C-alpha cells in the first residue's frame, strides 16, 4: 500500500477485499507524517493512542468506515484540546462534540490529528497561528494559504487522507488551491456549525479537504443535513451528492465572469484557468460570458461584515469562564482588558478593533448597514447569473503560493488574496477548488467552480469530469 496515493474509495475497496485494515492505514499514515511533518508542520497535535483504539474497532461496512480524518483546531471534539491556534485557548478542553464530529463517527470515520490555522481563522497564510508556521508542501519556503492552512498542507503533503476545515471568506478553497488538493465549501446552512468556534456566523461553513473530488462528496454526504442545535442549519433535504459523478459535461452551461480575470491576476494562473475553460468547451459544455458587477466590492463588504460579527462573537473571550485570565487582573474590567491583550495575537485584535469601529455609534449606517445592502446586491448578481448558467467558473486565488513573510506587515494586501473566494460566502452558495495545473515554479494552481445553493451535485459532476481527464490530483509533492 502506498499511502500517498490512496483515497477514501480505494481504501474502502481494500478494506472490503481484506487487503488492508484501518490499523494498517493508520500506521502507514503515521510513517508518512514522520517523514513530511518536520518540514510541513501542519499538525498541532496527534493522539496516536486514541486513534489506534478507534481504528481497531472501526466498522468498515459504514460509508466512511475506518477512514482517518484530520480536523482543524477550531472544531470541538469531546476530550480534545481545541485552541483555534490562540494562546487564549491554549489549554481549552472541548466538553462536547461538534455535530460534524458526531456525524463522522456515526459514518464510521475516526479523527486523527488537529491541524494548524490562522488564529481564530483570521488570515490567508496560517502565519497568524500563535504556535507554529505551516509550510507549503510544494515549496516549504512558501505559505500554505489560510486560514485552514494546516488541513490543506497535510492533505497536499499526502500526510492525511482527508481533513475538515472552515471557510468564512475562502479559508478552505484558497489554501486547497495553494497546496494542490481539493477544497470544498458547502452551501450556507447545509452543514451544522454547532461546535465550530464562531468567527463570522453569517459566513462560516465547515467543509472538506480531500485528495480528489469524489472523496469530498463522500465526506460531505456524511456531515451534511439539518441539526436542531444550530439555528441557521437548513431543513432542506440534502441531495445525493454523488448522483451526477461520472456523467459528462455535455450541455452544462458554465459561466465565466469577466470581473474575475481583471487586474491583479497572475498571468500563469489566468492561462491555466483559461485552458480549463477550453477543455470544458471542447467537451461540449456551453461557455457563457457573464458579469457579476458587484464583485469589485467583495473585499470591502467582507472586511466590514466579517470583522463586525467577529467583534461580537469574540466578546465571549472575556477571561471569566474559560481560557486565559491575566494574573495581573485586579477587577472585572481589567480582567477583560488584560486577558484579551495577553491571549490574542495582533491580527485578531486588529479585526476586533475594525469590527468594533464599523459598528460604533455614528458609523453603523455608513459601514455595516451599507455593507449588508451591497452584500444583498452581490447575492442578486448570482441569482441573475444562475438563471443563465448551471455553474460559475473562476480562478480560486489570483496567485500561486506566496513567500512566507511577504504580506505579513500589510494586512490589506493579505486580505486581497481572498478576492475570488469571498463572493460564495457572501451569497451563501457552494464552491469547490480543484487543481488545474502547475506554474513554471512547480506550484499548484486552483480552479474554482461555484454553484447555486444546494447545487452541489452538478458542481461535483463538473469537477469530477475535469479531474478524471487530467492527472493533477494524482501529483505527490517531493517535499525537500
Amino acid at each position, binding site marked *: 500500500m502506498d499511502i500517498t496515493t490512496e483515497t477514501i474509495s480505494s481504501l474502502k475497496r481494500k478494506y472490503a477485499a481484506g487487503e488492508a485494515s484501518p490499523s494498517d492505514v493508520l500506521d502507514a499514515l503515521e510513517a508518512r507524517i514522520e517523514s513530511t511533518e518536520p518540514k510541513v508542520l501542519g499538525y498541532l497535535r496527534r493522539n496516536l493512542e486514541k486513534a489506534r483504539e478507534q481504528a481497531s474497532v472501526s466498522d468498515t461496512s459504514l460509508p466512511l468506515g475506518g477512514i482517518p480524518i484530520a480536523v482543524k483546531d477550531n472544531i470541538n471534539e469531546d476530550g480534545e484540546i481545541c485552541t483555534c491556534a490562540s494562546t487564549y485557548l491554549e489549554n481549552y478542553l472541548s466538553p462536547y462534540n461538534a455535530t460534524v464530529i458526531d456525524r463522522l463517527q456515526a459514518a464510521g470515520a475516526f479523527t486523527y490529528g488537529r491541524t494548524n490555522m490562522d488564529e481564530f481563522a483570521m488570515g490567508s497564510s496560517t502565519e497568524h497561528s500563535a504556535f507554529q508556521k505551516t509550510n507549503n508542501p510544494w515549496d516549504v519556503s512558501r505559505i500554505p494559504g489560510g486560514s485552514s492552512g494546516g488541513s490543506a498542507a497535510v492533505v497536499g503533503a499526502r500526510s492525511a487522507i482527508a481533513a475538515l476545515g472552515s471557510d468564512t471568506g475562502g479559508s478552505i478553497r484558497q489554501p486547497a488551491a495553494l497546496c494542490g488538493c481539493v477544497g470544498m465549501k458547502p452551501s450556507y446552512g447545509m452543514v451544522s456549525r454547532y461546535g465550530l468556534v464562531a468567527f463570522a456566523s453569517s459566513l462560516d461553513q465547515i467543509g472538506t479537504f480531500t485528495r480528489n473530488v469524489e472523496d469530498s462528496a463522500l465526506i460531505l454526504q456524511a456531515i451534511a443535513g439539518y441539526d436542531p442545535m444550530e439555528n441557521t442549519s437548513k431543513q432542506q433535504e440534502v441531495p445525493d451528492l454523488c448522483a451526477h459523478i461520472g456523467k459528462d459535461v455535455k450541455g452544462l452551461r458554465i459561466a465565466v465572469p469577466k470581473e474575475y480575470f481583471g487586474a491583479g491576476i497572475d498571468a500563469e494562473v489566468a492561462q491555466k484557468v483559461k485552458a480549463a475553460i477550453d477543455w470544458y468547451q471542447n467537451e461540449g459544455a456551453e461557455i457563457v460570458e457573464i458579469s457579476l458587477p458587484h464583485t469589485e466590492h467583495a473585499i470591502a463588504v467582507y472586511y466590514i461584515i466579517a470583522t463586525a460579527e467577529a467583534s461580537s462573537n469574540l466578546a465571549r473571550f472575556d477571561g471569566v*469562564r474559560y481560557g486565559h485570565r491575566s494574573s495581573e487582573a485586579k477587577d472585572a474590567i481589567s480582567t*477583560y482588558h488584560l486577558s484579551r*491583550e495577553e491571549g490574542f495575537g495582533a491580527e485578531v485584535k486588529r479585526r476586533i478593533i475594525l469590527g468594533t469601529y464599523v459598528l460604533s455609534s455614528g458609523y453603523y449606517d455608513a459601514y455595516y448597514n451599507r455593507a449588508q445592502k451591497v452584500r444583498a446586491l452581490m447575492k442578486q448578481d448570482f441569482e441573475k447569473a444562475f438563471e443563465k448558467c448551471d455553474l460559475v467558473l473562476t480562478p480560486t486565488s489570483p496567485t500561486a503560493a506566496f513567500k512566507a513573510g511577504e504580506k505579513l506587515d500589510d494586512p490589506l494586501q493579505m486580505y486581497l488574496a481572498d478576492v475570488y473566494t469571498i463572493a460564495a460566502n457572501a451569497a451563501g452558495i457552494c464552491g469547490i477548488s480543484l487543481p488545474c495545473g502547475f506554474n513554471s515554479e512547480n506550484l499548484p494552481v486552483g480552479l474554482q467552480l461555484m454553484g447555486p445553493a444546494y447545487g452541489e451535485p452538478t458542481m461535483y459532476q463538473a469537477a469530477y469530469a475535469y479531474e478524471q481527464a487530467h492527472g493533477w490530483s494524482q501529483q505527490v509533492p517531493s517535499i525537500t
Partner: protein
Amino acid sequence: MSVEKIDVDYVAKLARIKLTDEEAAAFGEQLQDIVVHVQQLDKADISSISESELANDDSANHLREDTPRPGLPTDKVLNNAPEAADGEIVMPKIVE
C-alpha cells in the same frame, strides 16, 4: 464620505482590549488603509435594497421546539474555568 482619523485607543476601550504599545502604533495606519479601501462602497447604488428586504433574509433563526434536554456536565465546564471553587467560577471582586 471622507475618512476621519480612527481613534484606536477609544475603539480599543469599547472592545475591552488593551493594546501593546507596538500594536497601538501600527494599527492606526493599517486600519486607516483598510477603511480607505472599504470607502469604495460609497460608489455602489444601494437604493434598490430596502431595510425590510435585509430583515427578511431566510438564512437565520429557524427555532427548534423548546424541550428540556441535558446540559453540559458542570465538572467539564468548570474544568476550563481559570479559577473555580464550590461548583462556581471565581472572579476578582467586582464591587468594592
